């Protein structure tokens, strides 16, 4: 196999690995921009993965699978929202509880369908490559041919779910930084009292974004079980929810940077897997698969430390983790 094809295939799988991370990161960024640190991402992704898969299995309809996955994770996010926003509970304990609840809920629900495969129409959707270029006419051209072939293999052989996810990141950036509602949302996260005083409905904004954020996380779960793997397995999300919590810090709560961040972390996820086939490299401990698995977390820690050491850098929404009491003003 020639080297450019190998790299292209590697990039293509990094893109696929990035999708659940990107969806989760978008969701958690929205949630944290509203001032709520939701540590329940893992649980929400599990709920999305299980409910989405059940719908996919029984209806063989991708739209229904997505819808049910959204409802499932939306239910979890709503629970979290009611507790942290209305009942003002401690956000990180509530998030941990949501992870325990969501994982248990998903594993209980999915138990009977574990190891089943998705039905044909959904598999067809997952394998479709709608943007694939017809390359036969240009394949023989000297420079253009190989370049197009590389681009095609790396970026254009994915299904709609993948493209819509990356589009969602761009939409998310526009929403946050170029619309009035996005400005209001950021204000709620930075200084809810000031936002309230200027007439923004703080509680409503928090509810809407926490629930939408949770649904985006859940869609990440739907992608994993329904689209990417095509089966439901116990603990299928496998800790990606926690990588998402890390990624959000890494990308500084910015949806555009989230694209780069999730591609990088997605690539790391498969580098470890691929490197075991390269003899000379994998025998060096630092490059062993198991050492590389550690890097996403170590990188996040380094980013965390640098962020807090450089007082100029954006350290996240100022009111993150603080419940809003109008009475305390």
């Amino acid at each position: 196999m020639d080297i450019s094809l190998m790299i292209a295939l590697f990039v293509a799988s990094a893109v696929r690995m990035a999708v659940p991370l990107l969806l989760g990161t978008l969701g958690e960024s929205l949630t944290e921009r509203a001032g709520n640190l939701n540590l329940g991402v893992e649980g929400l992704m599990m709920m999305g993965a299980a409910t989405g898969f059940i719908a996919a299995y029984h209806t063989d309809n991708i739209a229904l699978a997505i819808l049910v996955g959204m409802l499932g994770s939306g239910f979890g996010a709503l629970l979290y929202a009611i507790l942290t926003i209305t009942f003002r509970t401690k956000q990180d304990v509530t998030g941990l509880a949501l992870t325990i609840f969501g994982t248990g809920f998903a594993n209980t629900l999915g138990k009977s369908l574990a190891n089943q495969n998705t039905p044909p129409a959904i598999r067809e959707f997952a394998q479709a490559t709608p943007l694939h270029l017809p390359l036969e006419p240009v394949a023989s051209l000297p420079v253009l041919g190989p370049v197009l072939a590389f681009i095609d293999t790396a970026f254009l052989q994915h299904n709609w779910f993948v493209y819509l996810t990356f589009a969602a990141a761009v939409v998310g950036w526009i929403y946050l930084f170029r619309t009035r509602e996005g400005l209001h949302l950021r204000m709620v996260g930075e200084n809810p009292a000031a936002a309230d005083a200027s007439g923004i409905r703080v509680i409503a904004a928090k509810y809407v974004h926490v629930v939408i954020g949770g649904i985006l996380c859940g869609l990440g779960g739907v992608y994993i079980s329904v689209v990417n793997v095509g089966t439901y397995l116990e603990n299928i999300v496998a800790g990606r929810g926690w990588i998402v919590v890390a990624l959000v810090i890494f990308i500084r709560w910015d949806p555009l940077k989230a694209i780069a961040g999730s591609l990088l972390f997605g690539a790391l996820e498969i580098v470890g897997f691929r490197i075991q086939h390269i003899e000379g490299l994998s025998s060096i401990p630092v490059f062993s698969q198991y050492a590389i698995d550690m890097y996403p977390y170590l990188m996040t820690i380094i980013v965390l430390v640098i962020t807090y050491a450089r007082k100029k850098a954006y350290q996240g929404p100022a009111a993150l983790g603080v419940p809003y009491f109008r009475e305390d003003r």
Partner: protein
Amino acid sequence: MRLRIAKKETAGGWRAAAIRIISVLVALLFSGLIMAAMGFDPIAAYLAIAKGSFGSARGLINTVTVAIPLLIVALGLSISFSMRFWNIGGEGQMVMGAIFATYAAHQLPETTPAVLYWVTMALAAMIGGGLYALIPGLFRAYSGTNETLFTLMLNYVAIKVAVFLRLVLWKDPAAKGFPQIKAIPEAAHLPKIFGVHIGWIIALVVTVFVAIYLKYTKRGYETRVVGESERTAHYAGINVRRVLVGGVALSGAIVGLAGFAKLSGVSHVLSESIGGGNGFSAVIVAWLAQLNAPVMILIALLFAAMEQGAMGMELALKIPVSVSDVIKGLILFSALASEFFISYHVVIEKGPRALLRQYRRSGRKELQADTPEGEDQA
């Protein structure tokens, strides 16, 4: 008319206790509804859980065994929590403790007497857990780095380190290619008293230590002052950084000890799953017990019973064992919500027009009575 939420003066102990008990019952009710919706019989499930955890000597022994590391981790974390240092890195600190204990066990000659094994391994585990907690502790004290996320990430690093040790560095050549770490020697195993390994004695000793430390020692007092307000502590002449760093290290050391208890008492072989989720469950145990050490014994036993009983339930009724996580999560949700009902109450308030009428009728006084300080008259 509109609804307003107001802070209450501290609720009476009985009222608070009643609200907490009701909240657990509400959680059980909701879990029952969820189970019924999934097509399982909730009453049979609860009975099976009770039978599996407390119904037999075997079940009881298993329940206590499961509760031991959970309790020790919760106790360790509670020292961090009382400083408002949100250490959710219990899992990592426990794994680190077990890694250090394993290392110590393999360094000692085979002829070492058992007691010396236990002491060395326990100390090594405390050093491992303590040092591992010290990293985020130092960063928080000196540069304000967010400890919640830092400790969370360190969990995964520790787990990956254990995987790495198992598959690469410490892979036992005698295991015929099976990727596992060499088991600790027989002499290093903890003996059993009343059918349970003596980790339970360690857990009780730690309970007493933490209760006394936080309540009756100078250092414990300083710890609590730092938790109340770092600024107050600073003005009172307390060296906040030193208390914080020392407290976090002690916290991690105790959590590390749980790693030793699990390794030496139950697993005997180090693996990445030695933490067993205790680091996360313990956050909840410590929190539900309101950082009260003796109460943690009760809650740790309850959680262990749920886990142990759920296994019996799966065997008997084919209800997935993960139902116990659903119940745990719901108990926690409703316990969290119950704090709200303990410290707030809902006031029905007159709307602005009614207030204005009232104001015109009777002058300023009554309107003032409605400012936040005078909520109870409202």
